[in-house]
């Protein structure tokens, strides 16, 4: 942009072709050209940047404003920190915070363990390896809402498949989603089922990138499969572990769609997470309050994830 005027002048002086073309102009032209060469590649970012600006940055900044207002979509009245004090005095906030943390820790933990396990199995020399890999990854491709509705039916206490199968072996299963004690755990298990495929794929990539030499060395030293796993695979797949932890932890903290379709945060408040609390405020027409909640969620996720990423990344370098 800044090079615009000087370029125009250059063109003009060339048109004059008079003796006035001084060294100064030359110098200017050169600088302009340099800037141009240096910056022109950034223009390729412009379209994507514009979309990002309009769709992400502007609303994010605006939400910081609306969080301080009583907002009915037509008029916004500045009410200072009232929304935040209301949000923090929300009765279900503390329990839903615990639910959120439990959910995030449980799902990311289970995805790490199961993902690693599946990846080790699926990188071994098996005949139906390709098929199994597809099967493990398949749930990732299904819409979360569809998964939620399907499992809602499977978990139905009277005629649902889960309790029917359990009754064959003489177990009378609970009302998985309707009982406050099991509701959140049931949703978390489904989340793991749906997300473990992605973790497995990341681990497979991580394990495949480990040089075969290490395993051959263990063979020479007479070590078995456990030694290989414990001392080669596990430490050298650490970058993959960090990626899985980070991705699934962020996913767990802001998880909403599965919880909402399966239990709606219920029964009562038994599976409410931060995201479902915020959504219910939005549903009730408390737009300012729910925006304040989203700002808090944004800050919370940042406060947990950035330090986590920092620590994990540093350990990666230490390796």
């Amino acid at each position, binding site marked *: 942009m800044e090079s615009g005027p000087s370029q125009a002048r250059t063109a003009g002086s060339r048109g004059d072709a008079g003796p006035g073309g001084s060294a100064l102009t030359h110098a200017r032209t050169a600088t302009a050209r340099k800037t141009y060469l240096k910056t022109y590649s950034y223009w390729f970012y412009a379209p994507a940047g514009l979309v990002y600006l309009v769709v992400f940055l502007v609303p994010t900044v605006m939400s910081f404003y609306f969080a301080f207002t009583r907002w009915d979509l037509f008029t916004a009245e500045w009410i200072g920190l009232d929304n935040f004090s209301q949000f923090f005095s929300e*009765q279900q906030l503390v329990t839903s915070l615990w639910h959120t943390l439990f959910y995030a820790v449980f799902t990311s933990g289970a995805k790490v363990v199961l993902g690693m396990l599946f990846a080790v199995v699926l990188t071994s020399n098996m005949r139906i390896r390709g098929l199994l890999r597809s099967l493990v990854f398949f749930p990732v491709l299904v819409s979360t809402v569809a998964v939620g509705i399907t499992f809602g039916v499977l978990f*139905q206490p009277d005629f649902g498949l889960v309790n029917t199968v359990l009754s064959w072996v003489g177990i009378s299963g609970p009302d998985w989603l*309707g*009982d*406050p004690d099991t509701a959140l755990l049931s949703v978390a298990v489904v989340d793991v089922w749906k997300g473990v495929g992605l973790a497995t794929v990341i681990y497979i990539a991580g394990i495949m990138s480990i040089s075969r030499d290490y395993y051959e060395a263990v063979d020479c030293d007479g070590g078995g499969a456990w030694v290989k796993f414990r001392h080669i695979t596990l430490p050298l797949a650490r970058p993959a572990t960090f990626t899985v932890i980070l991705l699934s932890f962020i996913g767990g903290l802001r998880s909403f769609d599965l919880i909402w379709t399966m239990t709606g945060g219920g*029964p*009562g*408040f038994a599976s409410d997470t931060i995201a479902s609390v915020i959504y219910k*405020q939005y549903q009730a*027409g408390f737009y300012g309050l729910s925006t304040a909640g989203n700002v808090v969620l944004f800050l919370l996720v940042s406060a947990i994830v950035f330090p986590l990423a920092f620590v994990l990344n540093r350990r990666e370098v230490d390796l």
Partner: protein
Amino acid sequence: MKTARIRLATVATAAVAMVTLAACASSSSSSSAPASAAGSDTSSSAAAPAAKTELTLLVDNGEFTVKAAKAEIEAFQKANPDITIKMNTRPGGGDGDNLIKTKLATGEMEDVFWYNSGSLLQALKPDQNIVDLTGDATLKDVDESFLPVVTYKGKVYGAPWGTIMGGGIVYNKDVFAKAGITVPKTWAEFEANNDKLKAAGITPVLGTLKDTWTSQLFVLGDYHNVAVANPTFADDYTANKAKYASTPAALRGFEKTAEPAAKGWLNKGAGSTTVTQGTTLLVTGKAAQWPILTAVVASLPKDQANKLGFFGIPGDDAAKAGATVWSPAAQYISAKSKNIDAAKKFVAFVASPAGTDIFNTASPATGPYLIKGYTLPSDSLDIVKDLQAYVDAKATTPALEFLSPVKGPALEQITTALETGQSNAKDGAAQYDADVTKQAKQLGLAGW
């Protein structure tokens, strides 16, 4: 709040339409097509000069509403060949709210629109947006008991369409007869009945908590008993002077919500039972009583629906037993309409005995109408007769949401938590009081 209230208030159409999976079947263009086609038919056959008035009508897209509206339009056009009516439909729930508000704000509202009565009307700024019908001949057939729910600052803005609904206990009459019990007049009798039912191996109280709105009925349906004990409760409550937790009569509703779980009256798996499943459980006699709105029977074939009866949530005084009712929705005329006279004609037609008869033929009643001079046909559902008996005995009270703009959005979660035994009545009521305070603050109401 809006969603919760709407869910209850429009459940007549919504729950029923969902059961039949027809709620989303009618888009605005497809449903308006027959109406406009009928209009052009009359114009070509009558070959009348261009003196025709064209009215527009906006209704919600519930199956039963659309059916009834179409029948009304057809009959009205036959009686008034110089007026044609074009019908548009809108979604229900919160989306419908937003659409109505936007249309009114931008001056694009249809001449006549059908929408909730009660506190949702207050949010439409009626004095600016809706034609005042106070003392107008349009309302000559309307029962006076309807007027309070369409009154704003002393002026009347709407005429009713459809029926009232009872909110209380829908029960299986065969099961009652077999167990040798009668309709309870007091809560103590209700408890005694439940013990007998439980001993006979029948689920005394049906919980359908997967559809969370149904958990509110013990609280909302108990309002008749609250009003009998505290006649000024609604005003005090709106003015932030009365609270659920500190008003013994109001607290009873929360105690009644908690009792089924504590005494083991509920069906197994109540937490994941839906309204559709619940209807089957009740009709087949696996469960005896269901706290719900009477409109649920609309989805049933007549012989099955007539197995069911209705009584209000029992109070503590048999002499004052009654029922809480949900008022009919209303027809309003947009203040921006250019055909107010024709619009009034149509509104008056729908709210007349003749119009009601047409309505009832298209969508059979699940409760009484509030139209003077109209008597329900003798082959109406039994549940309608039960409700009519309360109306005739003047033993009904409108639900609190028709008397006060204050309703907390989390009531259905709070009552679900109570009904699944996660908290106690006192805590539940206190939670709800806090929830109400939040809503009043968010609405910027005076005195909170």
